[in-house]
C-alpha cells in the first residue's frame, strides 16, 4: 500500500537530514527551557554538575517543567494531526473547535458559581472543553459524517464567542476574580512538578504508540472515504478511534496546563510542509516538532517580559496565530 505515500509526494528534505535537524531543534529547545527561569543565577553552566540551590532549581522545578512542555507539545500536536486526518479537515484542532474557550468557561463556572465549588477545577475544564467540542462537532455535521470545513470553523468561532461572553461575566464582578479567571484560562506551566509530568507521560506515550498504530489508517482516510473502504478500512472506525485518542490527549493536557491553543493547528501543517503526507512519518515528526515548539515557547515565556513570566499559552498564541494567518493568506491547501 505504498502508493498512499506517493499520493502526497515525498518530503522535500532528505529524510535523515530532516530528522537530524528536528532533533537538534528539540535538544536546543530543551537546553533553552532548562537554562532560563526565575533565578538569574542558575543558567546553562549549572546543567552538568549542579550543586546546592542550583541542583534543586534544576531537578525540582525546571526539569519537570521542561518535560511537561515536551509532553504537552507531543500530546497537542498529535491530537491535532489525528483530528485533521480522521475528519479529513485541515482545520480540525482544539483552537478552532472552541475547546480552549470551552475549558475557560468550565473553569469560570467552577470559580464563580457556588454550585460547582466541590468539583475540582481540572474536571470543570475538561467538561467545558468536551462540551464545546461536541457542540461544534455537531454544528459542523461531524456526527453525520458530512463534516463541512467552513461550518466547522464558523461553528467553532460561535461556540468560542459564546463561551467567552460567559467567561467575561467574572470581569464585571471584581478584580480578584478577574485576575484568577484570566490566569486560569490561558495555558500556564509555571507551577508544574513531577506528578503532573507523570500524568502527561502516562497518556502521552501510549497515545504516541496508538497514533503510530493508526497511521496507516490515517493515510487511507486521505485517499477518500470510498477508496479507504475499498482497501478494507472502515472510515467510521478510523474516525471513532482518532477522535478518542485526540480527546484523551487534549483532555490530559488541558487538565495539567489549561488550554494551550495553536500547537495542534500549526505543527501538523508545518510537518506536512517539510515531510510530505505519509502519516507513518508525520506522527513521530509532528510529536518532535510540537515538543520543540513548546520548549522554545517555554523559554521565550521566561525571557519575554523578564523578570516577570508570561504564561506559555499566550506565547504559543503569539507565535502560532500569525503563522496561521500567514498560512491562510498564502498557502493553497487551506483556502
Amino acid at each position, binding site marked *: 500500500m505504498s502508493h498512499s505515500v506517493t499520493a502526497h509526494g515525498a518530503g522535500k528534505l532528505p529524510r535523515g537530514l530532516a530528522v537530524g535537524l528536528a532533533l537538534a531543534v528539540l535538544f536546543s529547545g530543551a537546553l533553552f527551557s532548562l537554562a532560563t527561569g526565575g*533565578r538569574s*543565577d542558575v543558567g546553562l553552566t549549572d546543567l552538568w554538575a549542579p550543586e546546592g540551590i542550583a541542583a534543586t532549581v534544576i531537578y525540582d*522545578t525546571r526539569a519537570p517543567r521542561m518535560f511537561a512542555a515536551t509532553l504537552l507539545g507531543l500530546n497537542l500536536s498529535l491530537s491535532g494531526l489525528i483530528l485533521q486526518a480522521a475528519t479529513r479537515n485541515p482545520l480540525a484542532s482544539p483552537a478552532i473547535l472552541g475547546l480552549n474557550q470551552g475549558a475557560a468557561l468550565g473553569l469560570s463556572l467552577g470559580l464563580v458559581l457556588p454550585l460547582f465549588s466541590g468539583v475540582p477545577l481540572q474536571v470543570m475544564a475538561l467538561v467545558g472543553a468536551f462540551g464545546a467540542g461536541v457542540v461544534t462537532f455537531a454544528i459542523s455535521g461531524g456526527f453525520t459524517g458530512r463534516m463541512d470545513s467552513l461550518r466547522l470553523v464558523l461553528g467553532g468561532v460561535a461556540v468560542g464567542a459564546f463561551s467567552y461572553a460567559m467567561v467575561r461575566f467574572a470581569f*464585571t*464582578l471584581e478584580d480578584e476574580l478577574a485576575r*484568577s479567571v484570566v*490566569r486560569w484560562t490561558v495555558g500556564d506551566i*509555571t*507551577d508544574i512538578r513531577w506528578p503532573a509530568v507523570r500524568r502527561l507521560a502516562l497518556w502521552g506515550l501510549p497515545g504516541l504508540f496508538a497514533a503510530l498504530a493508526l497511521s496507516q489508517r490515517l493515510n487511507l482516510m486521505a485517499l477518500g472515504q470510498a477508496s479507504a473502504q475499498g482497501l478494507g478500512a472502515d472510515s467510521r472506525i478510523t474516525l471513532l478511534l482518532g477522535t478518542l485518542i485526540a480527546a484523551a490527549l487534549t483532555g490530559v493536557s488541558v487538565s495539567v496546563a489549561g488550554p494551550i491553543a495553536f500547537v495542534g493547528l500549526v505543527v501538523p501543517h508545518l510537518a506536512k510542509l517539510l515531510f510530505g503526507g505519509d502519516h507513518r512519518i508525520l506522527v513521530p515528526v509532528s510529536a518532535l516538532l510540537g515538543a520543540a515548539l513548546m520548549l522554545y515557547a517555554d523559554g521565550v515565556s521566561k525571557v519575554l517580559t523578564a523578570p516577570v513570566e508570561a504564561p506559555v499559552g499566550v506565547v504559543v498564541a503569539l507565535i502560532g496565530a500569525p503563522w496561521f494567518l500567514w498560512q491562510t493568506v498564502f498557502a493553497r491547501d487551506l483556502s
Partner: protein
Amino acid sequence: MAYTFKLLPVFSAALIALASPVLARDITHELGTTDVPDDPKRIVVLEFSYIDALASVGVAPVGLADDGKRDRVIAPYIDVIGDDWVSVGTRKTPSLEIIASLQPDLIIADKTRHTAAYDTLSEIAPTIVLDSLGGDYHASVAQMAAIGTAIGKSVEMEARITAHKATMAEYVAQIKPKAEGIAAQFGVTNAKGLWLHSPRSYNGSLLEMFGFDSNMETADGAVYEKVYVPTTLEQLSEIDPDLLLVGAYADPSFVDGWAGETLYENLTSVKADQVLPVTAHNWSRLRGMLAAEMTAADVVRIMDALE
C-alpha cells in the same frame, strides 16, 4: 466623529447650579474642575479609600460601592460611619439608578474605573475623580487632603492628617530599629498564583517607610515595573525576602501548595519561620489613613512576636 460633547459641560453646570444654591467652590481633580457645594451632606463614594477618608473626619456617606458585600466595609469604619449607608453595587459598575435615588450632593469616583461614567455621574451630582488605585501610600495621604477640601472639612482633615502622621511616626519609631537590615515582602495569593506587591505599590511604599529593605529592587539589571508581580517559586527564591507577609484569598492557597518542596523550604523566610499571614482584604483592597494605621499595628505585632 464628534465624541466631544460640547453642550454637556454647559448643561451639567446648569444642573449643578440648580442643585447647589449656596456657596459652591471649585475643586480641581483628575478630570477637570467641579463646582462642589460648600458643605455637602449626602456623599456617595465609589472606592474603599474614600470611605477611609470620610471616616477619618467622622462623615458618613449615604451610599458606597461595597461590591455587593456589606462585610467588605470593616468594623473600624462601621464604628464611625454607622450602618445606614446604602450599597450602590460593585466598584466596577455601581448602579447609577441607586446613586441617583440617594440624591447625593457629591460623588467621589476613581479615575481608573469611572472615567467612562464621569459625564453621567456629573449629571446626577457634582463629581470629583481621584486616582485611588494607582498611587502609593504617600499619594493616598495626599488624596485625603483633597477629599477634605471637597467635603468642606479641610481644617478637620488637616488636623487628622497631622495626627495620622504623628501616629505613623510612632509606629515607624517602634518598627524601624527592628526592621533594620530586614528585607520584607508583601504578596497576595489566591488558588492560582502569588502576586508580590512591588516597592512601587501602596503596601510596598508602606513597608519602605517602616524601614524595611526590599529585595525586589536589587535584581541585576532587571526591573519590576509592575505594581503587582505574578511570581513563581523560582523567582521568589531569588527575591528571597527575610520576612514574607502573605494575604490569602483562598484556602488552601497557591503558596500552601509549595510546602515540602526543597526550594521553598530553603527560602530564608521559611527556614526562619517568618512566612506570616495577614488579612488580604485589609492589606490589599483598603487604603487610607485608618487602613495604614491598621497595617502598621499589624507590623508592630508581627515584629514584637518575632523577638
